[in-house]
Every structure is written in C-alpha cells, then in structure tokens.
C-alpha cells in the first residue's frame, strides 16, 4: 500500500470505483446480475452505476445464475466484456457447468482461437447469521480448475486494483468479495493504478512466523500479529491475493525466513485452499521449517445459523495468536 495515499474508501466503494472507471474506459464492459441496477445489489455495492451507465450496461437479470453466466461466456467470446454478479458465493453451485466445462476450457479446447474475457464477482464469508446456504466460501473449487483465475482481495486498495486488472484480463476471472468487509475502510489513491494477478502482498513484515492469510482472514491475521507483537513474537502476514495464479515464491521465501507457518483461509477446513498452500510450503520450505505447517480457517462443518455456533466455526485474533505462540515456543 503506497505511503502517500490519503483518500479513504470502503471496500464497497473501491469495487464500485473500479467498475465505473473500467466502464468509462471501455464501452464493451457491462454488468449482469440480479438486482444490480436500481437496487445496486442487496449489498448496495453498485448503487449509482445504473444512473451513470444506463440499463443497457447495468442489467437486471432473472434469477437464472446458470443462464446469465452462460450468456456471459458467449458474450465474452464475441466482443462484450461482461462482469457477472452472483449475489452469494453459495450460488456458484448453479454456474459450475458454465464456468468449468465452458468458460475455463473454451480457449484450450479451441486450440487458442476463442477467448473468454469475463469476470464473475461473487461473495464469501460467514458471520452474517445467514445459515448454511448463504455463508460459504467456495473459492477452492474454482482454484482447482485450470483455465480460471481466482482473486481474493482483502483491502479496498487491493479490491480496486485487482478488479481493474481482472476486467482487462483476457480470461475468465472469478473475484470473491468478503461480505463482511464491504464497510471496511482503507486508503485508495485517486490516481489510476492496477495490481497484477499472481503477486502476493506482504501485509506485515516479521521474523518469527509467517501467517499466510486470504480474504477475510487477512484482518484476523493482522489482529493476531498485533497480539503476538505484544508477546514478543514478530509475525509476517502474507496475502496471496490470488489463489491462481499463485505467488508461491513470496510465500515460500517468507517461510524460509521465519521457519514457521500458519495458513488461514475461510473455506471449509478440508481439501481447500489452505491445503494447497500448506503443501506448497511444506514442499518449498521443507529444510527450513522448524515445525509442521498449521492450517486454520473455517471448521469442516456446514455453517450453523445460531450465533454462538457460527462464531465458533471461525478463527479469531486470539485463537490464531495462541496457535502461533504455541508453534513458536515449540522449537
């Protein structure tokens, strides 16, 4: 994050600004989704865009996630640059065929002749008391699929810069926004900038342990790092920002330096993003690791509605702090 930045935007505002700028730059960019126009989405992330760009470019759809995602694939192949809005990440279940069997493979199957420059924006994250069908973080599925790129911004700055890049990318990109983060504020320069996909960001420099954290977990990692600081432990926080392409080098270098690692991700606990990153670290920093890589994130359970239960499924500053301290004292 640049030192000079003074202007503060919320995460939601940063997203909207990225969209508005790209729509101004390129008349082929349009938005498709449920209640994206006048309503500006239930999260109000897009409010105001329809006023500027009209209903021909900010388009309300029926509740047909597969249908309008499929339509976007074809539109992207033929000259439009659609940004599809899937309200809750839980609904990507309905788009898997269009995203995985179509969007992800068109370029390869056609021997490189057709391209699918589209973006799917969707959400992740629990803790909104919305229960098991409105709280999932399913980004591991798309990360598993060659042909897709997957972006997980964790700050307003990253959100804006990465979304602009995603829209300009010639490939299908899935962009996951943490619902709980929309109101988070952070510095966003007024000047144009973009952030390349595939570049991790060291959100905090440290010596003793690396916390690799994605999306919603970045703030938790930073919170834990503060607690660790007080306990005399210096934690480095690495945010991969994109799970594919994955910046293995930055992650592995950090762990080689600190020799300890915790990987944090809000997806289900098993067969998820944290497993891949942990495996990458365990392989890449094998000879430097002082102890096993620990994984923390959502428990491997459907998200329960009841507030105390839901809260228990997620790591907190404190639980991460404790795990990190234990790791550091072990060796």
């Amino acid at each position, binding site marked *: 994050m640049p030192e000079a930045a003074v202007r503060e935007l919320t995460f939601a505002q940063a997203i909207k600004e990225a969209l508005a700028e790209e729509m101004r730059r390129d008349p082929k960019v349009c938005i498709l989704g449920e209640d994206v126009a006048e*309503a500006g989405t239930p999260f109000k992330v897009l409010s105001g865009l329809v006023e500027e760009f009209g209903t021909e470019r900010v388009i309300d759809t029926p509740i047909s996630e597969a249908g309008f995602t499929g339509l976007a694939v074809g539109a992207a192949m033929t000259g439009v640059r659609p940004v599809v809005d899937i309200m809750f990440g*839980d609904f990507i279940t309905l788009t898997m065929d269009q995203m995985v069997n179509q969007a992800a493979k068109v370029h390869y199957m056609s021997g490189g002749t057709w391209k699918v420059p589209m973006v799917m924006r969707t959400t992740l994250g629990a803790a909104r*008391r919305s229960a098991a069908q409105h709280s999932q973080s399913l980004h591991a599925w798309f990360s598993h699929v060659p042909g897709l790129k997957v972006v997980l911004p964790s700050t307003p700055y990253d959100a804006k810069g990465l979304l602009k890049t995603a829209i300009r990318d010639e490939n299908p990109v899935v962009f996951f926004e943490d619902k709980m983060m929309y109101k988070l504020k952070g510095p966003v320069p007024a000047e144009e900038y973009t952030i390349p996909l595939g570049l991790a960001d060291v959100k905090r420099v440290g010596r003793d342990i690396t916390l690799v954290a994605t999306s919603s977990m970045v703030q938790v990692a930073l919170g834990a790092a503060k607690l660790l600081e007080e306990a005399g432990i210096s934690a480095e926080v690495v945010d991969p920002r994109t799970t594919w392409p994955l910046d293995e080098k930055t992650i592995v270098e950090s762990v080689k330096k600190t020799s300890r690692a915790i990987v944090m991700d809000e997806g289900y606990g098993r067969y998820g993003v944290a497993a891949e990153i942990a495996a990458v670290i365990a392989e890449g920093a094998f000879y430097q690791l002082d102890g096993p890589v620990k994984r923390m994130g959502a428990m491997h359970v459907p998200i329960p509605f*009841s507030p105390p239960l839901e809260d228990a499924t997620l790591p907190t500053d404190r639980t991460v702090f404790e795990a990190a301290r234990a790791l550091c004292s072990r060796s």
Partner: protein
Amino acid sequence: MTIAAGSSETQTALGVQQWMGMYRQMLSIRLFEEQVNELYKRALMPGLAHLYSGEEAVAVGICEALRGDDYITSTHRGHGHCLAKGATPDRMFAELLGKEAGYCRGKGGSMHIADPKTGNLGANAIVGGSAGIATGAAFSAKQLKTGQVAVCFFGEGALGQGLFYEVMNLAQLWKLPVIYVCENNLYNEYTHYTETTAGDILARGTAFGLHAESVDGQDVRAVHATAARLVERARRGEGPALLMCKTYRYTGHHVGDISREYYRSKQEEQHWMGERDPIKLFAGWLLEQKHAEKAQLEGIYAEIETQMKKAVEFAVAAPYPGLDQVEQDIYA
C-alpha cells in the same frame, strides 16, 4: 354461498369449525410475522427474515387441503408455510433466534425450518432449490404407494431457475403427485416480475403437460377449493399440477427493506392492504355468513396475540445450543 369478489372458483363446503380454524391460522401467521418484525427492531433477531404478511391465504388455503402426512417444501419466505403445516410458534421463534429449542436446534434459522412430524421437508434459502426435493417426495409416495402428496411452494422468482423445468418434466412423465404452487407476489426482491419473466407463467406448466391454473391468492376459500381439487387429482394418480396464486407481500423483501419507493409505490401497497387483505376479506365473509360474530373474532385476535407474545418470551429466554453442537449432525 356467496362467492368472494374476484374469485370464480366454486367454493368447498366446509364446516364452521374448519373455516374458523383457517381463520385462526391466517391470523396466527400475521401476528407471528409482526412479532418477527418486532424482534428485528429490538435487535434481538440474528440476521434477517422475509415476512409472509399479505400472503396468508395461500399457505393456509393449500395446507388445509393436505393430510397431516402430506409433504411440503418451503422457501426463504417460509414462516407461513411452516405454521400452516402445523409448526408451533414457540419452537419457530426459538429457531429464528438460534436457540436449542428451535425446530433445527438453532442450526437452520428463519430460512430452514424443517419438521418431519408435520411433513415439512424444509424451507430453502436457494431460490427454486426445493423443487427437486418436493418432486422426490412425490416420487417416494408413488414408489412406496403411500398415497401422499407433495406441495412445492415457490415464489415467482424461482421461475428463473432451470431446475424447475427439469423436474416438471420428470413429474409429468412419471405422473408424480406433486403440486407446484407459485406464489406470485409480483416481485423478485426489488425487481418486478414482468422484467424477469417472459411469456406466460401457466403455459410454462402446460408446455410440459401439467395441469395448470391460477387463483386469487387473497381469497382463502378459492385457494382451498382449487388446492383440494388438484391435491385429490394428484392423489388419484392423475399427475402433477402448477397452481399460480396471485398475491402480494405487504412489507419489504426482508425486514431490513424499509425504503421501497424506488421499486414500488406506496399506493400499490395501500391498495393491496386496503382492498385485498386476505384476513379482512375472509373475516368479512365469516361475519356475513354468520359463521362468527365480531366479538368472537376480536377474542381470537387477543388470544393469538397473547399466545405469540408468550411464544416470543419462551424463545427469548431459551438457551443457545452448547458449542459441542457445532460438530453434531453433520452426518447421520
């Protein structure tokens, strides 16, 4: 028998007791939802809830035509369906507050009330997501020859989901006893359904060979009579049906949707609440038919109001599930 305005349906001749039971149900749903809104305003309710107020005649008219062991599936706007199928308010409120005493031990919340005892296969927070489940319950009924019928409640927004057409085709091919009940309340969230729905809704059923009709969803007697006919038809093995109920939700898409003027007018709301209120219309008929006296209806109101308040108190006081519950019930 007088025919309620706006309905051309021949009415079922029920006994006074049954009419009064339906009246109570409708009022219970209305007053339940008012308490839900209160809980939200008092910041006692976790998350949001989608109120059923205005649509009571649909759930009650349909469920009254069902046997206790018949199945229903419900939606994000499901409190009315669950109550009409026999759920009790105390355990409903407990669920809405995430308490152990709730129908789902607090794990489901407002959008997932389920109850095997009343044939409630569950409310569903995926729009159209329960169409397969309802069809499958009808498949079981046929396969196991139980004579049960399944009702799939869904909002007209679910017409956008391809799954719905896949299962209508299956239901018709296999003559499954399932009724797809479309609650057309004019809006998909904040968008008028005409902006999202091309062609003709009933034709979307008949195209697959289903029997399809529509009914005034504010007239509980018309809903009930139509449902009774379709349910018996299905029970006899004559196949599935699509029933569209024309109705209206009085409040926001969810409890937090307060400023609605950008997508619908106050006049429209007032028209429906003033002229087309299903409870008022039904009360009017009951009085006119001398099935009930005014004082009696007032008594019922007071009684239900008290019951709801008690149920809320129960739920508020009830304990949360223990943290060990997080990892229970993932697998049977």
